[in-house]
């Protein structure tokens, strides 16, 4: 599904290298987790994959289902099936959440040559999905993420993911700032989307999210590289011993 090879990324504005040769393959239908200390480059990886400005790829490739995505516009990557649940979802005053969702869903359908959803069809689907994430009508009406609590913002990310039905879902610290109940809700939302044709890359700091979203593979990222890869037990090791041991071991 997603194949990243030797990815080197620096900042456009300053001479700073952040990703220093990332290699990572996420197979179709699998859930991979990336853990790692703050500042190791996890968010940068997710931004570069989704096409944010300001980064310069100096070497390496990233392919989604065999197609190089690094030269594509963000909207093209989205239409190709990539989705990023933001670590910090953006507030957009003046743009209604519902309008935003419908515009996004229909833009992707249009880009893929599918028929757009009618207002009524859309409403039916969005209400159903919002309900399971405990997103009320008011949150749908309000401007995108404006005045949302941290948990509401994260649930809104999952709602977008559920509506857009991407093939490759990247979740950047979706658990941060969530209490246990909210995390369960988010995890249920994610698990409901698990499917043989859909892959996940779950970036997290803590093991606890991985109790709810069971990963197939766990990677440890440090200083711009994947330094260790293992099964779910690797997450437990981090939980129990912190990163220090692992980092010392690979150093």
């Amino acid at each position, binding site marked *: 599904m997603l194949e990243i090879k030797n990815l080197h990324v620096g900042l456009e504005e300053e001479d700073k290298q952040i990703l220093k040769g990332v290699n990572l393959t996420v197979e179709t239908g699998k859930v991979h987790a990336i853990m790692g200390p703050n500042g190791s480059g996890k968010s940068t990886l997710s931004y570069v994959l989704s096409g944010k400005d300001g980064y310069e790829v100096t070497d390496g490739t990233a392919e989604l289902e065999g197609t190089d995505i690094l030269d594509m*516009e963000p909207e093209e990557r989205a239409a190709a099936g990539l989705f990023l649940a933001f670590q910090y979802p953006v507030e957009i005053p003046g*743009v209604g959440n519902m309008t935003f969702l419908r515009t996004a869903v229909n833009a992707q359908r249009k880009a893929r040559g599918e028929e757009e959803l009618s207002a009524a069809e859309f409403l039916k689907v969005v209400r159903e999905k919002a309900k399971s994430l405990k997103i009320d009508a008011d949150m749908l009406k309000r401007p995108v993420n404006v005045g949302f609590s941290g948990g509401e913002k994260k649930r809104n990310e999952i709602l977008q993911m559920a509506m857009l039905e991407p093939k490759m879902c990247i979740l950047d610290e979706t658990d941060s700032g969530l209490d246990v109940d909210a995390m369960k809700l988010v995890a249920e939302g994610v698990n409901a989307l698990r499917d043989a044709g859909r892959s996940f890359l779950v970036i997290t700091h803590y093991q606890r999210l991985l109790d709810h979203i069971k990963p197939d593979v766990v990677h440890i990222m440090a200083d711009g590289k994947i330094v260790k890869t293992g099964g779910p037990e690797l997450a437990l090791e981090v939980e129990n011993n912190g990163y220090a041991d692992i980092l010392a071991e690979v150093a």
Partner: protein
Amino acid sequence: MSAKLKNKGVVPSITVPDGGKWATTARNAAAELLTETGLPHRRDEYWKYTDPTTLTAPEATPAAIFKSDDPLPFSGVDAVKIVFVDGIYDPSQSDALELAGVEIETLADAAQKDIHWAGSVFGVLEGRGQSPVSRPLASYNTAMAEQGFVIRATGKAAKPVSFIYLHESETSDAVIHHTIKLDEGADLTVLENGPAAARINAVMEVEVADNAAFHHVRAQGRDHERRTATHIFARLGAESSFKSFTLTVNGVLTRNDAIIEFTGDNAHATVAGACAGDGAFHHDDTVFITHDAVNCESRQVFKKVLRNGAVGVFQGKILVQPDAQKTDGYQISQGLMLDENSTFQAKPELEIYADDVACSHGSTVGAIDETALFYLTSRGIPHKEAQDMLTLAFLGEAIDEVEDDALADDLRSLLQGWMARRHG
């Protein structure tokens, strides 16, 4: 006593139209003042950011007619429709001048009468607005205008009065003057839309008596080459409300002046505008609000989206007289620049002589929020569409000032349609 313009411009030769005593008196006074001040000039402080040359030239610069199959703004609104073609009232395209709670008459008819209520408004509010700053284009209008309506609302109007200004001749030069009075407790909405002419000089005087409410919503027409100078003069009685909103898309030159005076306590005024300019577009909002009563609130909200060398100007002044305690004056002007070639100039001014007031003003210029743009595009929304969404959201904050939700929605969908078709 009216201050003279520093650099006296050309004094046009004026022959005021015939009419009854009240009209002639006002016209002669305006003509006399104009002889004193001359027409505005580029070097005048009040025209520092906007060159008035084409507005004061003897002839209008020809302007191509903009053709569109889109329905006119507000065409879905149930209103008394009054149509002008190139600045001339066309009764054949207009509704009957009948509206419960409202008297509607042409200026020409009213001006023939020797005694008329309009004598207390026509040229009077405009005259008061000539100090401390001269407004020669308004003097010219009062002296010369033969077109326009006198409207008096005695109660709550059953529906709005909607002026539709069609533009059919490339060389038309229009001078229109509306005189409006709201009696105590009256409520009236006036809609205006259309470019009117190659060049238009429009004045609207509005007397709002105690407890009355006046609503004004205007869309200035999409002709790219039209030139427009408008003045609104309003005087507000106690507990009254005045709200004016203007949407401007296109037009090579627009200068909208609003001169508002609070004379009764506890009144409210909002003057707001949203404009979107692309290329040969110069748009100037100039507002002067005088608080001369206690506990009045004024709001100025102006948003301009500019690209390809478009120019936006805002000059907004709040004057608080010594006795106008508890004044609440708010003013915001914002420019959203879609490229680096465009210009936004803002000159906010506060002049406060009372001590117990809350006045705030702010002005910002910025580009599209890249973080928001990335968020939208990362969800699959194409770049241009995402940019339009953010632009509409920006302008929407000014449209929010329109009290009537249906009219506000109308304005939003108008803008949305125009933007969508721009890049088809």
